[in-house]
C-alpha cells in the first residue's frame, strides 16, 4: 500500500485537489486537561454502547452480547443479548436497559432477561438510551424523536424537539447518531446533530435551552452533524464526542468549553461513533470502535 505522500506524488494533481485535515487536527495542548490512564480491550468486533452501573462495573454492549468489566478493566461477567444491541444504560436500581434497533429489552444486574418492550415498528432505529429513577428515555433516529417510557415499558411521551409555529424544526438527524442523556435536576439533554447543538428539555418534553455552534474551531462542533454522543458529569458538565474530526471535550452546562479530553490526534483517522460514560470517580470512558476498546481518561495532575 502506498503512503499518502507517495499517492499524492503519483496522482500528479495540484495542491488544490488534496484533502488535508492536518491543521484542523491540531489542538492547543494547554486545553487538553485529560490524559489516558487505561485501555481495556472489549473483545468485541463491533462495540457500540457503554454505561457505568451504580456498583462501578463498566458495561459494554456490542456484537450480540453485553460484557461487564470491573473498575480495573477485568471482564467479570457477560450475557447474550437476543438482538444486536445499539446502546445500553443502567438504572439507579441496577436494571440494565439495552436498546436494539426497534425495541428496548431489560435485564437484571446478573444478566437475566426481564422483559422485551413493545417493538416500535420498521422505521424505528434506536441509537441511545438513558435511565433515571422512574423514567427511561430512548432516542429513535428513525422516528426523529425521543421516547419517554415508564418503568413498565409503556411509552408516555414522544418528544419531537422544538418545532416553530410553521412546523419547522425538530430533530435533524442526517446520520445514525442521536444521543440522549440525563443530567442533575431532571434535565433531559438531547443532541440535535443536524443543528450542531445540544438541547435541554424537561422530562415531559418542554424545550428549555440549547447551546452549540457549527465550527471547526475547538469550541464548536465540526461537520454536518455533531456531536454524536454525550455524557453527563456529576456537576452537570457535558462530555461530547464528534465524528469526522474525532475529538472529546467537556463543556460547562452553559455551553462554555471547559476542557479537551482527547484531541483528534488521539484517534485513528476515520474514527466515528465514540460512545461516552463517566464513572463515579470522574473518569471519562470513551468507547473507541476502531480500537475496539474502552479508553479511560483522567484529569491531569496540576
Amino acid at each position, binding site marked *: *500500500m*502506498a503512503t499518502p505522500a507517495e*499517492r499524492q506524488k503519483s*496522482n500528479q494533481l495540484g495542491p488544490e485537489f488534496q*484533502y488535508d485535515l492536518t491543521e484542523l487536527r491540531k489542538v492547543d495542548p494547554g486545553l487538553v486537561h485529560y490524559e489516558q490512564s487505561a485501555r481495556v480491550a472489549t473483545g468485541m468486533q463491533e462495540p457500540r454502547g457503554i454505561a457505568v452501573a451504580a456498583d462501578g462495573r463498566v458495561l459494554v454492549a456490542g456484537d450480540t452480547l453485553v460484557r461487564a468489566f470491573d473498575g480495573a478493566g477485568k471482564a467479570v461477567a457477560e450475557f447474550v443479548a437476543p438482538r444486536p444491541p445499539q446502546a445500553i444504560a443502567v438504572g439507579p436500581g441496577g436494571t440494565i436497559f439495552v436498546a436494539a434497533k426497534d425495541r428496548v429489552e431489560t435485564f437484571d444486574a446478573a444478566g437475566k432477561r426481564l422483559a422485551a418492550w413493545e417493538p416500535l415498528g420498521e422505521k424505528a432505529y434506536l441509537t441511545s438510551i438513558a435511565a433515571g429513577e422512574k423514567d427511561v428515555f430512548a432516542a429513535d433516529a428513525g422516528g426523529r424523536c425521543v421516547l419517554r417510557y415508564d418503568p413498565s415499558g409503556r411509552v408516555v411521551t414522544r418528544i419531537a424537539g422544538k418545532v416553530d409555529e410553521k412546523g419547522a424544526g425538530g430533530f435533524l438527524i442526517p*446520520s445514525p447518531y442521536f444521543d440522549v442523556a440525563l443530567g442533575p435536576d431532571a434535565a433531559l439533554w438531547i443532541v440535535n446533530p443536524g443543528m450542531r447543538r445540544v438541547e435541554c428539555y424537561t422530562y415531559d418534553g418542554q424545550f428549555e435551552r440549547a447551546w452549540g455552534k457549527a465550527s471547526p474551531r475547538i469550541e464548536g462542533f465540526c461537520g454536518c452533524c455533531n456531536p454524536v454522543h454525550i455524557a453527563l458529569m456529576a456537576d452537570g458538565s457535558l462530555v461530547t464526542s464528534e465524528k469526522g*474530526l474525532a475529538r472529546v471535550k467537556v463543556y460547562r452546562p452553559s455551553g462554555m468549553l471547559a476542557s479537551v479530553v482527547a484531541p483528534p490526534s488521539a484517534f485513528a483517522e476515520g474514527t466515528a461513533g465514540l460512545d461516552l460514560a463517566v464513572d463515579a470517580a470522574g473518569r471519562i470512558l470513551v468507547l473507541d470502535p476502531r480500537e475496539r476498546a474502552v479508553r479511560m481518561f483522567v484529569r491531569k495532575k496540576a
Partner: protein
Amino acid sequence: MSEPENAKVKRRDLIRKGALATGLLGVGGTAALLATRAGKDRYVWQLDPEKCIQCGNCATKCVLRPSAVKVVHAFALCGYCDLCFGYFPPHFEPDSAIEEPAAESQLCPTQAINRKWVEGPHFEYTIDEDLCIGCGKCVKGCGNFGNGSLFLQTRHNRCVNCNECAIAIACPAQAWRRVPAGHPYLLKGEDRQT
C-alpha cells in the same frame, strides 16, 4: 405532528425517490446499452467504492481527459445537510447555516457540485459530470464527516473499456475489478447488487 410537517416529509421523500430514480434511469440505460453492445458474457471495468481510498489516480491515469471516472451520488444515503462537507471545505465556518456560499467557499476545485435548496435546512447536491474530473476530493469530505453518499464510478457512457485499464494498474488499493457488462456499476447502500 401537524399537517404541514407531514407534507414536508412527503415532499422530501418524493424528491429523494425522484432523484434516485433519475440516477438509476441513467445507469440502467447505460447498462442495457452495454449489454447489447458488448454481449452478455462481456465484462467491463469498475471501481469498488468500498475499497476506494480516493488517491486521485482516477483523475490522472485514465486514457481520457477528463477521466471517465466521475462522482456519483447515492441519494438514499445522503443526509441532505445544510453543511455538506463534500461541498464545503473542512475549515468552512458559516455565518448562517443556510447562506449561499461563494464559489471560493466550495471544496470542489472545478465546482462540479451543484447545491439546491429543498426545504428547511435541507439541500440537494448533484454532480455536473462535464466539470467533474474524478479527483475524489468531495468523496473524502463526505466520507469523513457525512454518510459517504458520494463515491466514484467509471461512467460507461464515457469509458472506452481498455483491455488493461490504466487506472486499475495504478490503483494502490486494488479497488478495480471486472464486472458483467449488464451490471456495470458497483453502487452503495440499498442499490448495491454485488
